[in-house]
């Protein structure tokens, strides 16, 4: 087999860190090659270098045997390399179609845009790989999973033969992961080479032909996926055992923290996105919501946090009706929030870490008060988060965009948990966090739970959902369709409910 990519001695330094330290990597043409490693190990950086987004300080790159040096992604695309980023890079205000042809606009004679032929081409690419999206929807309105499909189609449409996928499965539920893997196998069969980053080791073992492990910027090993076990991999990555999210003994009390009663949220065209949903979360309880993206979970969360208007029904927190409260009033009353998309709703990317830690808590101690910001208090608290949640950063004055994806996530989870919320709305709290740090986050959540925290947990990771939750409800097409006990449910059953294949007749009383 020929070599598609060969990297030799790649080094990349950032202020305060060496992200890649003399990394060698060889990728055989036509294989699926996984890159693993803990948060901040340098995976994304290495891929960005290969995609021409960042220039290496040292080292050489060869693609299909020829030495290359990319000044920009355009060069990489010309060399047949395409990348789907950890954080999507779509223009929110444009439609899917416009996004897809952006930068590669097909033109008719006279320079006019040829939308019709572009659309036909895209339909074909999408159909070939079973990637289903509505080309005319505005990207802003798409769920995370749909955005990813748009990104993949975009890369394929530009004729990429070497695909780089940075944590593609982080945003997907198991069924979607299966679909993605099916796409990847098809791509491989048609001759494509795929490089992908993944923190979920069972997924890596399922799909990869070869696995490379990075640690502290160095390549520690590259091995064929034959007879390797998940725990061996974990050992290589972080030097520790694979954790599982097992709920300790129940701490559920019978004091109701959050009560959602018959809540309905309508879309602009008056379709019910959240359809007459009722639920209760008690102090010390973790309620997990399972569901495929786009079934109303985001809107339900938005309604509880206050960024989405409730059309009908009511929400109360510790007995106070909060349906008409502002976001700030709710947050000050003790609602913590880990948003599903950290770049969209979680961070001020160009601001220093300590300001990011203050975001959402800027009007409460130690970050500030009603009128003023307490810089010293905020900085001390940020140092505390950094230590307690193992946020790897040279210091707390660097901008948030300089953190690796997983470390950004740790910062967000840290700022919410350390501010002692009484209700935590956590959407995919460990998304992008490596196996080692994931266990630590789970521990922190469990500990807060035993101190009386009520948690609404949304996660695409069904093991996490089953392992952490005291109760699981399934959301499908805006409705709660099942209520399950985590001890009696398998990821497979859950999958059935989530896709609507399996149903449970629910009486009002059961919820």
């Amino acid at each position: 087999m020929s070599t598609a990519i060969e990297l030799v001695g790649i080094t990349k330094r950032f202020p305060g860190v060496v992200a890649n330290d003399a990394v060698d990597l060889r990728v055989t043409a036509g294989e699926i090659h996984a890159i693993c490693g803990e948060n901040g190990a340098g995976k994304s950086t290495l891929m960005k270098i290969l995609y021409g987004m960042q220039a290496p300080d040292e080292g050489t790159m060869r693609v299909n045997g020829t030495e290359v040096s990319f000044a920009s992604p355009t060069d990489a695309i010309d060399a047949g390399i395409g990348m789907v980023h950890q954080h999507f890079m779509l223009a929110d205000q444009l439609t899917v179609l416009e996004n897809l042809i952006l930068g590669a606009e097909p033109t008719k004679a006279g320079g006019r845009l040829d939308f019709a032929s572009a659309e036909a081409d895209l339909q074909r690419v999408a159909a070939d790989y079973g990637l289903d999206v509505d080309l005319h929807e505005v990207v802003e309105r798409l769920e995370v999973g749909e955005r990813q499909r748009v990104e993949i189609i975009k890369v394929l449409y530009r004729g990429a033969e070497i695909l780089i996928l940075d944590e593609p499965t982080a945003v997907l539920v198991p069924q979607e992961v299966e679909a993605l893997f099916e796409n990847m196998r098809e791509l491989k069969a048609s001759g494509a080479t795929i490089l992908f980053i993944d923190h979920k080791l069972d997924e890596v073992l399922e799909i990869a032909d070869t696995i490379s492990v990075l640690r502290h910027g160095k390549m520690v090993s590259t091995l064929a996926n034959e007879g390797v076990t998940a725990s061996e991999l974990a050992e290589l990555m972080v030097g520790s055992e694979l954790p599982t999210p097992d709920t300790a003994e129940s701490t559920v009390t019978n004091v109701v923290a959050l009560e959602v009663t018959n809540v309905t949220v309508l879309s602009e065209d008056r379709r019910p996105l959240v359809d007459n949903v009722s639920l209760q979360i008690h102090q010390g309880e973790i309620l997990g919501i399972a569901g495929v993206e786009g079934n109303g979970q985001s809107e339900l969360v938005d309604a509880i946090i206050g960024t989405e208007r409730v059309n009908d029904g009511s929400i109360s927190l510790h007995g106070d009706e909060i349906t008409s409260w502002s976001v700030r009033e709710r947050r000050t009353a003790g609602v913590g929030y880990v948003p599903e998309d950290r770049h969209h709703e979680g961070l001020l990317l160009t601001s220093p870490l300590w300001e990011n830690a203050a975001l959402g808590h800027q009007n409460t101690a130690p970050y500030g008060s009603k009128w003023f910001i307490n810089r010293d208090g905020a900085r001390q608290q940020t140092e505390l988060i950094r230590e307690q949640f193992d946020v790897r950063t040279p210091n707390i004055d660097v901008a948030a965009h300089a953190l690796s994806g997983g470390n950004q996530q740790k910062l967000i989870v840290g700022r919410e948990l350390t501010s002692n919320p009484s209700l935590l709305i956590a959407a995919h709290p460990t998304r992008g966090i490596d196996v080692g740090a994931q266990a630590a986050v789970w521990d922190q959540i469990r500990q807060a739970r035993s101190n009386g925290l009520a948690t609404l947990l949304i996660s695409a990771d069904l093991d996490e959902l089953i392992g952490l939750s005291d109760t699981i409800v399934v959301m499908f097409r805006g409705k709660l369709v099942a209520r399950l006990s985590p001890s009696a449910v398998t990821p497979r059953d859950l999958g059935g409910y989530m896709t609507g294949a399996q149903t449970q007749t629910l009486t009002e009383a059961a919820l």
Partner: protein
Amino acid sequence: MRRLLFSLAAPVAAFALTVVISTIALWAFGSNPLEAYGDMVSHASKLETQVDILNRATPFYLSAVAAAIGFRMNLFNIGVEGQYLFAFLIAAQIGGLISLPQVLHILVIMIVAMVVGALYAGIAGVLKTTRGVNEVVSTIMLNSIAVSGLMAWLQRRWQADQGDNFTSTTLGTNPIDDSGLLPNVNGLLEVFTRDIGLGKELTGMLLVAVLVGIGYHVLLNRTRFGFDLRASGINPFAARAGGVPPKRMVVAAMLLSGGVAGLIGMVQLADVGKFPPDPIQGLGFAGIAVALLGRNHPAGMAFSAVLFAFLDVSSGVLDSTGAASREIATIMQGIVLLTAVVAYGVMSRVRERDEARATAEALLAEDTLVAA
């Protein structure tokens, strides 16, 4: 130390580049660059010219702060121009109608100016939050309504002397009593040097501008409101999820921006004592350039306001000595703006490289230490 060096490098580089390009421009237009620069510098070294420069820099600075408040939350208040002219007119008219003891009279006039500026800007804020009208569009329209509509109409109604004997001294609104005029602060400069001659007066608004600058700094960096404002500018979605009410912030920022804009006209009001038939125009647009050059930073904008004022004042000199045509000063303002944008971009890259190299060296030193 290194930090300071880096933050100074960009403006210095921009300045050097501006001088080079301007020299070429002067030379190309057939002037003697050395002679022109010589005239500019020797003129600016006179105390009276310095007073002129500060008097000019004061409204530039206020205008820049007004624009910067919007910029910090990605709000483009292009309407500072209309806001200050309208506020100037109303404040002058009211000031001319009332008579009060000194401090009170001045305060009332200033507060009226700020309130009018704020409300006028607030219209754009309300239009944006309730109707989704882009503030650029609405403030541009409000500018023309203020300048060619309201100002032209009200000015005619409020002429001081309705008779037929229009002369330049009787035009404009009712003159304000001396009790309503902010005194000059010549003393501030005179303690350091000699008495200011030629009947020049250093505007008292200079002190107000300094206070506004300090207020701007404190507001943005120390208050929760300022935090909310900056957060909204950087990521409105994250800000909203963090409890910042987006609509209220838009209106508040517009009100604040307009309030500061209202002060701009007070510089000329203190000088002439009424709304003159030919008020100084264009200060609102100049403020945008000054804010850009000063990167919305309170001290940066002060430097750039003085620089722009220096170039403005110099243009008169060049004209009168015949060393170059007066347009060269405007051209230099444009050049300095462009080179600054480039220089800031380059410097931020160089700084990142430098920090990365320093890290590598530190790590290497650590490694050798461990090895030894």
